[in-house]
């Protein structure tokens, strides 16, 4: 970030939520960079930015789409980059129809499933005998992909294509070429629309557009930084895609100070998707197999990639087999598909919200909460607690007695009388956990960088690390199963489960990291740590717990422990920590040089082709086959890495290019389109289709949706609420509300309102307010501040209310408590990744404290009846067909 000339922070409150990382933005600013903060609220980030642009929560696709339209219309995009490095020149099939043609949906929408058949979005093929470039294996319907939140599988490599022989128009004038399709799609995203829909004035839009244009190109780069202000929407993945398209058009990807910085929200949450804690992924973003579809290793691999596509994802067989060898060691052999059958299979969408609903339905019996506090931190707090109340058993491992461990005696439903402690049958276990200074291990953060944290003290009393817990639990289960002849026990009994343990039983974290890195299993190097994933084989001669981490232990050195100070190394600082893959600090960095291999400019030189040596060289590890000449063009029969041309910087994409148009991989549209959130007081100004037609909805009596624009009853919940974090607290509060020094900084749950809204509702600064949604009602202190601005959207004033979500009711030993903002939210999910829409919902606010007990439930029901909402409200997939016809 320090190398950036312009940083746009949007969907993020970086200074408050990533204060230590923010030092790099401060550094960039001291070097002359411009910092722009686009956010519904004026926050501490806005205070140190050059400009704050207030935006209506949920309208980001309009703003970013208008920027795309602007650079295309004014021809200020980085043409040389776009033509060579993106799929702008590729032709889209004639069957494709845009949202402009169909009133807000793309071709292929299937109203039965609420998802798309993606085949009409395919590229035009130039291979003999076929019109479209399909996907490997049997074609997958969008519904199947939504069922497994397949979008998450593209964390390291793009979606697979059957091959990369695509029809192209190098002049980019063919109406079916991606650039023209893109242009047409965003033609109505004008600055006037931005004012109407986002509430952003013309001057602010021009400033933003000018800043990006003037700071992109050969000599300068612009960066976007985002966090959950973009992800937590019912089309969150598309928000990010829109910025990716813009950044590709401006030539900012793969360049120093450019790109898109995904600001992840915990010390190691990047690690939580790399070595996943996600239901649908295996380590390194290999997808979890699906029952009935991936019955053998061969079938599975066929679906994951095609041998004929370009790039390094064609080596996924080596990654998968090495993973299986790491898990099942000698038991994994070629003749048993390397124990592939031992892997569990998905038979539905097991995302966390679905799982909670399954708990209520009684099909999920047990729950492990490891450093997670869903009673406070997950959307729809009531549903979370009712789910836990219906379990057979619940295990909570945490450093404090969090609300998710004590809801059965002191949660809000006990207070309201909806639950009685004696009648809750869940057996709750609390196991104290060691914190990060009491155990060894790594964090993997936003920069994909692994950093070792060293154990400083022994954990107190019975507290133990998560490694200890998982490992010892596994040992005990295996002891119980020892000698079993039942084949269902073999996956556990055949696991390699033999780490060294210290005198406390703590497994050696260093040994585990080494196993993740991987080793040679046979040959003269047997037993040695692998130098990197290029060495992985599909014949069982290598093992690696996570292919993208391979190299962290190269040369038998734990490189995550590297801590060479920045003053003692180059500005890229490769000797601090270790970033995957292969310690590359900027991905796709071949794009920092022009098609001939020369840096776009001296100022932004990063990696380049050295003609004499015949290799790529530079400040970072080149993210490209190091001896591939820029002039190299592969034969049509080439495959895998050999099929990468000298100008294919996107080495993990099936066609080697950055995708402006996504024929696969985004199941709710190949290009982002604006839809209103699930709950919105505003009509979709672009299309009759109000909301994302592919969003995942859960029509249930305990999950009612507020009326939106045009529905009767829309004025019952007239205000837009958004949730967020404060610097002083951490997520659901387990690590901050139990600490005196943090608790006294922000002791009480409060909401932020504008002076105009305060006047409208009679709210007083420092007073109390009750907030009501279709799900629940909570109370909060009131902070009246000009930092919240009413916006004029579609001719009406939209008030936004902000709420930090750190407080909970109950828990033992917390210094401060308060109602939970998440109790107000419902569950509607993005179809690509199953993330909830926390960032925008509809509420009412009234002065005064809330009622208690049965009165509280009556208040909520009162509002529900007044608004006339039913289980079906807001859950229609397609808007009225007649209206759509009219729009055509």
């Amino acid at each position, binding site marked *: 970030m320090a190398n950036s000339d312009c940083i746009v922070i949007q969907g993020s409150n970086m200074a408050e939520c990533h204060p230590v990382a923010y030092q790099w933005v401060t550094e960039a600013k001291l070097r002359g960079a411009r910092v722009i903060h686009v956010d519904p609220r004026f926050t*501490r980030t806005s205070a140190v930015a050059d400009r704050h642009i207030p935006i209506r929560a949920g309208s980001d696709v309009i703003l970013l789409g208008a920027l795309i339209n602007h650079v295309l219309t004014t021809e200020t995009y980085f043409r040389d980059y776009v033509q060579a490095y993106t799929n702008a020149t590729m032709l889209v099939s004639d069957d494709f129809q845009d949202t402009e043609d169909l009133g807000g949906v793309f071709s292929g929408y299937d109203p039965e499933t609420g998802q798309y058949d993606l085949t009409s979005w395919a590229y035009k093929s130039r291979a003999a005998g076929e019109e479209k470039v399909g996907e490997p294996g049997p074609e997958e319907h969008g519904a199947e992909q939504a069922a497994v939140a397949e979008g998450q599988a593209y964390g390291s490599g793009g979606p697979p294509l059957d091959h990369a022989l695509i029809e192209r128009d190098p002049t980019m004038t063919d109406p079916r070429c991606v650039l023209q399709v893109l242009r047409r799609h965003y033609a109505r995203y004008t600055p006037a629309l931005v004012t109407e829909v986002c509430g952003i004035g013309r001057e602010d839009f021009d400033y933003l557009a000018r800043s990006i244009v003037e700071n992109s190109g050969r000599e300068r780069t612009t960066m976007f930084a985002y966090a959950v202000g973009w992800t937590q929407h019912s089309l969150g993945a598309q928000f990010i895609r829109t910025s990716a398209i813009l950044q590709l058009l401006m030539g900012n990807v793969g360049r120093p100070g450019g790109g898109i910085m995904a600001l992840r929200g915990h010390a190691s949450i990047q690690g939580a998707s790399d070595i996943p804690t996600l239901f649908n992924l295996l380590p390194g973003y290999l997808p979890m197999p699906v029952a009935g579809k991936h019955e053998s290793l061969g079938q599975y691999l066929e679906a994951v990639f095609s041998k004929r596509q370009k790039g390094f994802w064609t080596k996924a067989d080596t990654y998968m087999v090495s993973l299986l060898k790491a898990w099942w060691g000698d038991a994994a052999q070629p003749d048993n598909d390397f124990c592939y059958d031992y892997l569990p299979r998905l038979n539905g969408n097991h995302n966390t919200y679905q799982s909670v609903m399954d708990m209520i339905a009684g099909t999920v019996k047990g729950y492990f909460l490891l450093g997670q506090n869903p009673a406070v931190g997950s959307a729809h707090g009531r549903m979370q607690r009712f789910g836990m109340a219906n379990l057979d058993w619940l295990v909570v491992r945490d450093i404090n007695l969090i609300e998710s461990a004590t809801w059965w005696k002191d949660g809000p439903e006990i207070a309201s009388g909806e639950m009685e402690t004696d009648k809750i049958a869940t057996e709750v276990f609390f196991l104290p956990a060691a914190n990060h200074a009491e155990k060894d291990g790594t964090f993997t953060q936003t920069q994909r960088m692994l950093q070792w944290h060293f154990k400083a003290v022994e954990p107190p009393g019975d507290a133990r690390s998560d490694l200890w817990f998982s490992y010892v639990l596994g040992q005990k289960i295996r002891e119980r199963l020892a000698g079993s002849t039942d084949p269902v026990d073999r996956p556990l009994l055949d696991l390699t489960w033999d780490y060294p343990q210290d005198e406390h039983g703590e497994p050696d974290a260093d040994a585990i990291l080494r196993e993740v890195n991987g080793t040679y299993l046979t040959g003269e190097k047997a037993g040695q740590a692998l130098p990197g994933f290029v060495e992985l084989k599909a014949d069982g001669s290598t093992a690696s717990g996570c292919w993208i981490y391979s190299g962290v232990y190269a040369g038998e050195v734990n490189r995550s422990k590297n801590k060479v100070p920045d003053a003692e190394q180059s500005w890229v600082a490769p000797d601090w920590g270790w970033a995957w893959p292969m310690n590359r600090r900027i991905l796709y960095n071949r794009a920092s040089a022009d098609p001939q291999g020369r840096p776009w400019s001296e100022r932004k030189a990063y990696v380049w082709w050295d003609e004499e040596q015949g290799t790529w060289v530079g400040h970072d590890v080149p993210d490209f086959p190091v001896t591939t000449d820029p002039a190299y063009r592969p034969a049509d029969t080439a495959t895998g890495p050999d099929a990468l041309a000298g100008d294919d910087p996107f080495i993990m994409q099936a066609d080697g290019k950055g995708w402006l148009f996504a024929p696969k991989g985004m199941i709710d549209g190949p290009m982002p389109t604006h839809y209103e959130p699930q709950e919105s007081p505003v009509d979709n100004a672009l299309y009759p289709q109000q909301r994302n037609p592919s969003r995942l909805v859960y029509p249930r009596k305990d999950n009612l949706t507020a009326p939106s624009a045009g529905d009767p009853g829309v004025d019952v919940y007239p205000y837009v609420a958004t949730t967020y974090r404060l610097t002083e607290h951490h997520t659901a509060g387990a690590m901050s509300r139990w600490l005196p*020094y943090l608790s*006294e900084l922000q002791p009480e749950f409060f909401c932020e309102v504008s002076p105009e809204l305060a006047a409208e509702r009679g709210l007083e600064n420092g007073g109390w307010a009750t907030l009501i949604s279709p799900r629940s009602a909570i109370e909060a202190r009131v902070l009246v501040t*000009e930092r919240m601005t009413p916006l004029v959207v579609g001719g009406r004033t939209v008030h936004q209310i902000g709420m930090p979500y750190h407080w909970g009711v109950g828990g033992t030993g917390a210094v401060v408590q308060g109602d939970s903002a998440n109790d107000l939210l419902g569950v509607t999910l993005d179809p690509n990744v199953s993330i909830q829409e926390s960032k925008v919902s509809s509420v009412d606010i009234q002065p005064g404290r809330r009622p208690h007990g049965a009165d509280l439930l009556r208040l909520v029901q009162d509002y529900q009846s007044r608004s006339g909402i039913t289980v079906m409200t807001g859950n229609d997939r397609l808007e009225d067909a007649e209206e759509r016809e009219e729009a055509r």
Partner: protein
Amino acid sequence: MSISTSPAEWGKGVRSMLRDSMDAHFWKNQLSGPTDPAQDAAWPDPPPRKGFFTDTSICIGCKACEVACKEWNQLPMDNIGMTGNSYDNTGHLGANTWRHVAFVEQSAEHIAQARVAGARLVELGMPRVRDAAVGSPDAGLPRADAGLPRATAMNSSRAVPSGLPLDGPGTRAALPSESSERDTPTNGLDPGRVALTRPGEEDASAMQWAAEQALAEGTVPDFRWLIASDVCKHCTHAGCLDVCPTGALFRTEFGTVVVQDEVCNGCGYCVAACPFGVIDKRKDPTTTGAARQVEIGIANKCTLCYDRISLDAKPACAQACPTTSIQFGDLDEMRERARERVEALHANGFTEARLYGANPNDGVGGTGSVFLLLDEPEVYGLPPDPIVTTHDLPDIFRKAGLAGLTMLAGAAVSFLGRGNS
């Protein structure tokens, strides 16, 4: 905490003090005016004076300074409760809070006022930090090449990115030199319409003009949030130190002022004497949240981490601050950085930037904690013209002496009148 001075060193200190006492300048600046406080306190060969430069223009209000200070010093919690005053629930410095972050929300009108008032200060030749050559005509004035003021991005190619490499690719040194290639000013301020006066003498009035122009054209931002981390000033002439009857408060070799918990008797004189309202007595007997047993009833304040800086470490707040808003080092260097930063901000149209505590001729002889503020001190809850209570002692004694002499003279005269009856 105690000072260890050998009898020999003490003797050396007394002798040097006796020597200095022959110097009129020494006496003149014992209670006010520029001086080296560690030397005045008879430290033989003290190290260079240490202090803070708090650049509030880059503070992100994270309060890491508040927490790091409390953790290092194992201080108790203060009141628990939301104040309703922006994000400031701490309120003020006190016995248990030695760093306090203030939050001030301001609308466009206030910002414009601050900008214009700042420009006037520049015009008046507001006293600035002097260079080594006191009274040098260039001291403190903006450099000739400061460039035309533009109400644009707060950028500065001259600001020091502390703690990071200054050379090499990707750093300031690799930037193209400031030239006409740089993007034209935005915010609608057309450079053609800015008065093209030569910088230098007319620089101040050009800044004033630009500030007023910015307000008229609406290029003053709609809103801003001032955020500043306050701390003990470690004054050159410290009121608390001067009035302490027990000697609990003492001047360290670094020029800082520290309370010795085991000596303080809780008289509270220091509380009244501090012009900034920093030091206070610890009243709450519950000491909630303190990691160690703390004394009730005694006075407490920031020690400028005497224990840390004695080992060449940075104070806890400076160490924790992620953006280098809180900088620590030799006070001379802190003042120099502060001056450069103010100039850089002025050169870019932020005429409201000014220093606080940097002037050795102010009422406390300058402080060991220099601040860069973006508005009047009162806006931040700081006294605009702090004067140490002992500042006027010579004057008071003179007047008292004169009054005494007058009384004696009057008595003598009255005797004269009766002498011959």
